[in-house]
């Protein structure tokens, strides 16, 4: 193989103008982080709500939650992003479709919402499992003290369920960050897309993707450490895993 290694490439000016190849990576990283954080907020919010619905006694609400989960969980993320990005503007009324297509940063919003909803189905399953793992008597104890059902969830069920599912939520956090790379297919200039752009401009494919790999490793390691710290902070003496 006649490959010309050039680790100094990152300090060369990029043909896009206005900065170096390293700057391209940084701008990609920014977008990756922004998409991941916002998608994770949606995933946690929607996931918690749907997870709670799935645990309620009402069979219709449970069915609704299950439908949501199965739809979003069983269709590949790539297909979902294509549906949101390419298909949705064509099936809504024309004026809305035009508005969607003219939206600046449409790939960004699509990635945030698409990834957020996709991950929310996974979070919902975790939350529902966490709730189901609690002793049945906890609900009875909350109600017996005069709490309403929402209060019982708020003060008794959810604080404990979240503690139970914190470790699996760590992997879902990391999955969200990793899955954000799929958004390059709808034209979002996130980290993986920027690494590919560097490769196309400079032909330094190994350097570009080595850099991307190391950056992904670094942010996921940081995310893991932060979640571990959170787990430690939330740990209750005499309860749960030591």
């Amino acid at each position, binding site marked *: 193989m006649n490959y010309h290694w050039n680790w100094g490439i990152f300090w060369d000016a990029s043909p896009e103008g206005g900065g170096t190849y390293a700057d391209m990576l940084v701008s990609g990283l920014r977008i990756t982080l922004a998409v991941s954080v916002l998608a994770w907020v949606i995933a946690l919010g929607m996931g918690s709500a749907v997870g709670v619905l799935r645990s309620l006694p009402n069979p219709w609400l449970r069915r609704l939650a299950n439908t949501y989960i199965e739809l979003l969980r069983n269709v590949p993320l790539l297909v979902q992003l294509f549906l949101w990005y390419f298909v949705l503007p064509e099936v809504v009324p024309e004026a809305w479709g035009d508005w969607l297509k003219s939206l600046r940063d449409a790939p960004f919003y699509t990635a945030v919402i698409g990834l957020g909803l996709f991950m929310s189905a996974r979070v919902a399953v975790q939350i529902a499992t966490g709730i189901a793992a609690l002793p049945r008597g906890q609900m009875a104890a909350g109600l*017996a003290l005069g709490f309403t059902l929402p209060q019982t969830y708020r003060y008794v069920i959810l*604080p404990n369920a979240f503690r139970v599912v914190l470790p699996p939520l760590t992997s879902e956090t990391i999955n969200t960050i990793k899955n954000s790379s799929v958004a390059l297919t709808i034209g979002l200039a996130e980290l993986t897309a920027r690494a590919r752009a560097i490769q196309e401009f400079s032909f330094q494919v190994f350097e570009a993707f080595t850099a991307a790999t190391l950056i992904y490793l670094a942010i996921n390691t940081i995310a893991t450490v932060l979640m571990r710290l959170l787990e430690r902070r939330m740990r209750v003496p005499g*309860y749960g895993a030591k």
Partner: protein
Amino acid sequence: MTDTIIALEHVDKWYGPSFQVLKDCTLAVPKGEVVVVCGPSGSGKSTLIKCVNALEPFQKGEIVVDGIRLHEKGVNLPKLRARVGMVFQHFELFPHLSVLENLDLAQIKVLGRGKQAARAKSVALLQRVELSAHADKFPGQLSGGQQQRVAIARALAMDPVVMLFDEPTSALDPEMVSEVLDVMVQLAQEGMTMMVVTHEMGFARKVAHRVVFMDRGEIVVDARKDAFFGDVGNERAKQFLSKILQH
């Protein structure tokens, strides 16, 4: 009868379409009385007591708690339950809260008590069940007997008009039974109205006014304590008593 705290009137309950767990149960608990409910396992006694604060639904009949009819339309169940203390077989303390926080929570969120007033009440109640030294511990750090005493204090913090006990000592190691029963005896002697599902016949002899014996979903005996332990008159109850009193 204004002084009846709990009245069950011909209560029927089914699990599913065909399995009847409660059959025509009628029972009254007057203010200040201690009623012990006993019977073989599966006789429906735990189900019965859970119906009293509507933790379990029942299909026919009526239950009146402190003047409130459970089957009446628009009945405010949370408000009713806040006035009925309940102690569970498995304690059911909230594991993520300290002992004091367990006592504070419903006082603040349900009764709307101020934080300081709630805390003062919690501290006093913990002293009463002799657990002041454990106030800042978490439930998982306490023994079963200690947890159950905290659970009793938590129920008392709501100033209940009646206390329900659902097999409060059944999940305890033998050496911890008496510390819980002592608290219950003291409570009974202070005049608290109590409905207690238990096999602790020593407790029944000591403080019960009446003993109710259930079998296969029916209340077969409802007698004053002396009558019950003298000559109960019912063959099934006699057999049951002879079995649990042997030891």
